[in-house]
């Protein structure tokens, strides 16, 4: 090996190292937004103005009519088969002997029907379920490619054109709120009707609820119905021990509910 060759090689190494180092740095910094300062400044200002969406569910008001689940399917093109729901309603019936019966035929669409005779019932109530839009969303943590994310307004969304359909997010969701859409073949879930709330409308389920059992609003806005609901009622989230910090709050949540 001649000295000349060594020198050339060294030069080559230096040049290539610089090239690679530069590209790596660029590719790391770009996604993190470290390079586009002007952009991020605008974002932080705007972020204060952005709402933080959340939902309250009043179990004491829900009558299990199924209008919300029906409206959700129409509004969001959810397949009509009874295996795909962005929102559904469960009826819990605690029997006198302590046994808990849970049912949700067709997600409650068409109205929940009592299946246990009155004399055996200790208590019974309806629980609407939907994506909890967790602050620490396990699905977002698990997605391998960044195809599901928390929007700046706190809504957990799916990027239909980017999802690879691995179902890992579905496994990671403790609430069973996600499903694999058989038509689009990507993960599908409640978006709080993102297209509606961005226009100032209510989510479809909230719009059609006849008893106002669902309260939608901005958690940042002290005057919103949601904030008032949270101030007035003792509320709880589902599966709090999993520390998902969800933004769907239940009033009247009984310990039988999972």
């Amino acid at each position, binding site marked *: 090996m001649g000295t000349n060759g060594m020198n050339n090689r060294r030069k080559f190494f230096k040049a290539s190292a610089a090239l690679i180092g530069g590209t790596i740095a660029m590719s790391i910094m770009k996604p993190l937004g470290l390079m586009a300062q002007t952009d991020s400044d605008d974002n932080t200002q705007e972020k204060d103005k952005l709402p933080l969406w959340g939902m309250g569910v009043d179990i004491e008001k829900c009558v299990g009519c199924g209008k919300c689940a029906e409206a959700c399917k129409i509004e969001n093109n959810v397949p009509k088969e*009874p*295996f795909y729901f962005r929102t559904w309603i469960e009826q819990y019936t605690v029997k006198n002997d302590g046994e808990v019966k*849970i*049912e949700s035929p067709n*997600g409650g669409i068409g109205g929940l029907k009592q299946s246990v005779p009155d004399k055996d019932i200790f208590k019974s109530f309806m629980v609407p379920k939907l994506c909890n839009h967790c602050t620490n969303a396990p699905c977002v943590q698990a997605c391998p*490619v960044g195809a599901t994310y928390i929007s700046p307004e706190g809504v957990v969304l799916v990027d239909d054109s980017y999802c690879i359909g691995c179902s890992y997010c*579905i496994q990671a969701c403790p609430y*069973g709120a996600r*499903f*694999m859409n058989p038509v689009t073949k990507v993960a599908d879930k409640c978006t709080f009707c993102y297209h509606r709330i961005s226009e100032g409308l209510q989510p479809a389920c909230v719009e059609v609820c006849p008893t106002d059992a669902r309260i939608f609003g901005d958690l940042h806005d002290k005057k919103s119905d949601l904030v008032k609901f949270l101030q007035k009622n003792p509320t709880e989230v589902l599966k709090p021990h999993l520390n998902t910090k969800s933004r769907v709050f239940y009033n009247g949540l009984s310990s039988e509910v999972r």
Partner: protein
Amino acid sequence: MEEHFQHLYQALSQVDGYIYPNEIDLHWGLMIVLYPYITGLVAGAFILASLERVFHVKVLKPTYGLALLTALAFLLVATMPLVSHLQHPFRSYEIFMTPNSTSAMAIFGFVYLWYLMAVLLLEIWFDYRRDFVIWSKTSKGFKKLFYQLITLGINDTDEKSAKLDDRLGYFITVIGIPSAFLLHGYVGFIFGSIKANPWWSTVLMPIIFLFSAMVSGVALVMLIYMVVSWIRKVDIDMKCLDTIARYLLFILIIDFTLESLDQIHRIYEAEESFDIISVLVSGKLNITLLVMQVGLGTIFPLSVLGLFQFYKPSERVRKFFYFLVGGMVLIGIFFMRWNVVIGGQLFSKSLSGFTSFKTVYSGMEGSVMAAVWLILPLFILAFLLWLMPPWKKVTYHE
């Protein structure tokens, strides 16, 4: 799609108790059972090879090359079940392009790549480099072309270069052991990190996966060594086989201990999820878990191999039982993966009911496809053994 709906309606009619409506569709099927199974075979085979190289268990020499090529053959197929289970397989490149740093699955892509490119290929390359050069001079046609290409144009065959190969190869193997641990421990973490699922979410999951991987990999190499020897009509080195069997016994003991520890811990703590899990184990999983995994896959091999440590019957009997035990262990570990992957999805996250799982034959997730992904590595292995037979090697590492 209609067929899928039919399938789901049938599952709906068999739901036991209450499950969330979206859970009727079982999202991870046979392909995801295969994925940890095949990855485990890779890690296990590699660790057997490392025993010889790094820990100087010289009696295992006849299986060193075989184990490495087995690992490679299975590793090349390891991601295929994953890709074929994706709903959008052509988007799979995104895992490498925009990996989500918090996702266990995304990082697995890189662990896999590291293991394939930086460990296994390099180790095999260093091990064979000098032989490639020598073989390229004596062979013809495709083989010659392949040998010439794979040497990357380095034609040194002197002692000095062989020594360097040896040292670098050793270095790679030393790195390779933690890498193989990482590879399969990581697969365990993909399941163990899902806090939503109490059947998966245990800190022991990576380490259980690791030891069961070693069990399956060692058993596989043992079987392949026997079969290849029969095909080549050469005598099986009984000392080597006995040693492999002894290691298999040790690892099986550790594996069984860890899995029992996990179960005992569950039973004793009896957390919220315990009721449903105990129904799961005694009901839906009783055949695959208690009979296949524990009975056939663990207790039977443990008893036979344990007995052979004290009482050694004739070679013929031993060979027969080693073959049987190897097969049983492979079946047992397959069902261990099954019980983790399918078992974890059979019960609802509402902890109040069960869905059912039925394998289908056709389609990307069917059992035909699964058989393809299990048999393909054997063909690749046959090809590799033809291309670079370990028994024709001229050079040997120290």
